[in-house]
């Protein structure tokens, strides 16, 4: 046990003396919080909407100004022919075009209904769906208004109405950054824990000092823990730093217990670093390891629910996620940070992490050879 302390002492001295490591440790969380979180947004800012009003009636003009008043839309008015409208969309100058056909208001008054045309650039499917939903909402509320005006009844009401009232908990402003930032922190922690510790290991191999250690009676698990712990601690520090930066820069709340987060993150890092060690113990060349790990990492990140919800993924993907450590921590960190979940709220994740971690650690110790 004392051996581990001596090893830790050495590792920390080395890390702090390594001039290139310190900036990485401090700059990475900053860059990630400032750039990544701001870049990775699925939030819809402004929809470029063009209104082609071929009717120029009171109805169409007023509805157009309703669109203009909405903060979702950036409105342009234009008089275009159908082919010009097509061109507009082909060129990408508008996301959505609303066309009021000639005789719109007349149709409405005479036939009790009239149609306008909406053309949406649907390449980004979810954005298209959302934009259309906004448009429909504006139309519907305007529709109610003019019904009341024209028929002289205070808001025409159907015989039965069920109002569905939304309440958005934990993130009432629907700030997408609150969703992304904890996820990005997981990536940060993974990079520090996994990559830095692997780089460190490779360096020792190349210097020959690993051999020197293998010749001593040092126990395998001493060595492995001695290699993991410093980076685990540094990763936890960076996590804290990242949370602070997020709080200062865009107000990310922290509703849970920081110790709970540390416990979960430590278990995660223990698991992830064991996997890394196991992989490098069974691989022959460094390049192979790097290459394959890189791709596994990308695959795991994509499937982890960082960008898109796991619940939307096909069943086979969700099953695969059971062995995806990143999936676990992203779930956990979002729950702890935004909802204040505790250890007892996520017992199944806790047990799975512990079990998975112990398994991989044993495999890593088993495969790590002091004797080649």
């Amino acid at each position, binding site marked *: 046990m*004392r*051996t581990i*302390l*001596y*090893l830790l*002492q*050495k590792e920390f*001295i*080395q890390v702090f*003396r*390594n001039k290139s490591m310190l900036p990485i440790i401090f700059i990475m969380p900053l860059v990630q919080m400032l750039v990544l979180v701001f870049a990775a947004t699925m939030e819809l800012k402004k929809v470029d909407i063009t209104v082609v009003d071929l009717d120029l009636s009171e109805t169409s003009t007023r509805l157009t100004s309703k669109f203009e008043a909405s903060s979702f839309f950036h409105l342009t008015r234009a008089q275009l022919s159908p082919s010009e409208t097509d061109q507009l969309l082909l060129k990408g100058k508008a996301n959505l075009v609303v066309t009021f056909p000639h005789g719109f208001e007349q149709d409405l008054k005479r036939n009790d209904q009239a149609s306008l045309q909406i053309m949406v650039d649907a390449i980004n499917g979810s954005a298209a769906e959302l934009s259309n939903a906004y448009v429909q909402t504006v139309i519907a509320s305007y529709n109610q208004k003019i019904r009341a005006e024209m028929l002289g009844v205070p808001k025409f009401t159907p015989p039965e109405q069920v109002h569905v009232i939304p309440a958005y908990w934990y993130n009432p402003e629907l700030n997408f950054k609150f969703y992304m930032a904890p996820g990005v922190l997981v990536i940060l922690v993974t990079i520090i824990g996994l990559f830095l510790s692997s780089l460190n290991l490779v360096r020792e191999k190349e*210097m*020959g*000092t690993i*051999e*020197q*250690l*293998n*010749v*001593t*009676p*040092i126990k395998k698990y001493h060595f492995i823990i001695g290699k993991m712990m410093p980076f685990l601690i540094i990763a936890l520090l960076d996590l804290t730093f990242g949370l602070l930066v997020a709080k200062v820069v865009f107000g990310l709340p922290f509703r849970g217990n920081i110790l709970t987060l540390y416990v979960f993150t430590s278990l995660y890092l223990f698991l992830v670093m064991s996997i890394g060690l196991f992989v490098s113990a069974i691989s022959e060349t460094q390049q192979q390891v790097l290459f394959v790990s890189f791709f596994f990492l990308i695959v795991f990140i994509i499937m982890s629910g960082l960008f898109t919800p796991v619940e939307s993924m096909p069943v086979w993907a969700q099953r695969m996620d059971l062995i995806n450590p990143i999936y676990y921590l992203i779930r956990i960190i979002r729950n702890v940070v935004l909802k204040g979940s505790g250890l007892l709220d996520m017992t199944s994740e806790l047990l799975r992490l512990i079990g998975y971690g112990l398994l991989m650690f044993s495999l890593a110790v088993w495969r790590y050879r*002091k*004797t*080649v």
Partner: protein
Amino acid sequence: MKEIKSDKGPIIQVKDLVKKFGNFVAVDHLTFEVNKGEIFGFLGANGAGKTTAIRMLCGLLEPTSGALRVAGFDGYHQREEIKRNIGYMSQKFSLYEDLTVYENFRLYAGIYGIPRKERIRKTDELLRKLNLEESRDKLVGGLPLGWKQKLAFSLALFHNPAVVFLDEPSGGVDPLTRRTFWDLIYEVAHQGVTIFVTTHYMDEAEYCNRVAIMSEGKIVALDTPAALKSFYKTDSMDGVFLKIARNKE
């Protein structure tokens, strides 16, 4: 588990030791013994198999077949016990360049379980003896090669092992420094430590009690330097080696 009790007697016993890498036989049926207190040299050109052999003796490499006993322990099943009783100095000197001299000692002493007080005392003593006192808190990376050599050797001995393995300890070091280094080795050998050294410098062979010459994985000669010189009728180990090499052709 037979422990060596007698004062003289073999402390390293190797019989028909073989190491194959795929189809390539790096070490081909080595058989020899090293007695306690000896300075035993393993000579040969690069690629002869010296480093492979020494790594098997240290427990760094798994032999393909053959019997191996070091310091009274079996080389297959009692490797950890062997490691407790041996020291090792690699070709690269394997010191932590970004730690100070003192920090290197502290680390290895800790790993071998040497109590703090004893470690401090021994370190101070050692640094004084090696004239490295002033460099105590200097990073190893900044030291000249000769000092690193002394340092690596001292670290290998710090825990009082019975046998010390030196793998090409003089690589890249100038001849004068080599001489002083061997003075150190003699001192240590006089205290009863067995020295097993591999080298491709023929003049270092002269310093050994006995010498084994390796070629293509086999031992082609094994005796004291004097006996070898007289057998091959030359007056230097260089000459011995050349004659052996010529005989092979």
